[in-house]
């Protein structure tokens, strides 16, 4: 971080920023995907097989995992 003078603590604060966030990183995309899929199921596919719901759930899971991996990889080592 260019404008952070205390680089020894930067990693600590960045890790602190993840507290209570990583869980939501996985949960929120999944819920969003599920809602989106359910909306699509109801609106487009007339509630046939909940396929879009499942797909949205999986997409959300993938997005969540990607978010978590990104968040961890972007941490500076202290």
């Amino acid at each position: 971080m260019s404008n952070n003078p205390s680089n020894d603590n930067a990693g600590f604060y960045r890790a602190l920023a993840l507290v209570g966030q990583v869980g939501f990183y996985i949960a929120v995309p999944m819920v969003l995907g599920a809602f989106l899929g359910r909306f699509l199921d109801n609106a487009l596919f007339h509630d046939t097989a909940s396929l879009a719901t499942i797909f949205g759930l999986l997409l959300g899971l993938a997005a969540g995992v990607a978010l978590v991996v990104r968040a961890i990889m972007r941490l500076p080592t202290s």
Partner: protein
Amino acid sequence: MFWPISHLLPSLTGGATHILADAGGPLWLLPGIDVGPTTLFTIGPFPVTNTLINSWLSMIIVLVLFLGATRKMAIVPKGLQNFVEWGAGLLIDFCEEVAGKPWGRRFFPFVATIFFYLLFANWTEIIPGVDSLGTPMPGTHPVAGIFLLGNDSNKFYPWVRPASSDLNFTLAIALISVVVTQIYGFRTLGFRQHVGKYLNFRDPIGFIVGILEIVAEFARIISFSFRLFGNVFAGDVLLIVLGTLLPFIGPTVFYPLELFVGFIQAFVFSALTLVFLSLAITSHEDEHASAAHTEHSEVGELASADAVH
């Protein structure tokens, strides 16, 4: 004035046993716990809830504390000014440590407002009478005009409830925190670069990363608001339930814990806001550069940590 029985002295309830014998029910009941706040009255279409009243109370406490301390400031601090300066000074140091000297100064007012507002909003849950003073529901029969006993004991609307146990409050502050972070991002990085973080049409990977960033911002709002709400609501329920099960002794044990939790949650909220603010003013390229040269060592460290375990 109507008090529920849950916060009365047990000795007082001894005198009330004959009423209970008539009623034939338990001495008191577990209060009904609602996630949503209670609307006490409305001003036009505008509902005034018990949590709103508590947030006004917290505002008044913070304002009295700060305006009182800074009204006539002396070079050699004394009393209230000393106390407030001590707290604010710690926070200023923290801001300058996390965000650097000039930025820490600019972030401090915002972070300090969040911290002290939340601190007192959280701490109000331990004030006696919060959650236990209220208006009885229609159809109840208050004993001696003020006490609710037996089956009526949980049929009342509390006048004051901790503001942080209302999702409206926590969501509002989480929104403000995220929006202010965005504003700082716009102002330091410029419109193009900042929006480029989220909407990137140059390549598909960049586009997906941008969408992920948007989802991450959304997740941040949710995590900010739900963490604070969950902690304070749970603490509030804990105090209510313990006050019902074991009046006076039960909650007393948990008051220090709740003071601690209230402080920690206020601190975590403001510290995370500060961290995200200082991340927002860092350009993407900077971050990539630092991430690229630390990634290898990070992976190595994780791998070696695995090997040790």
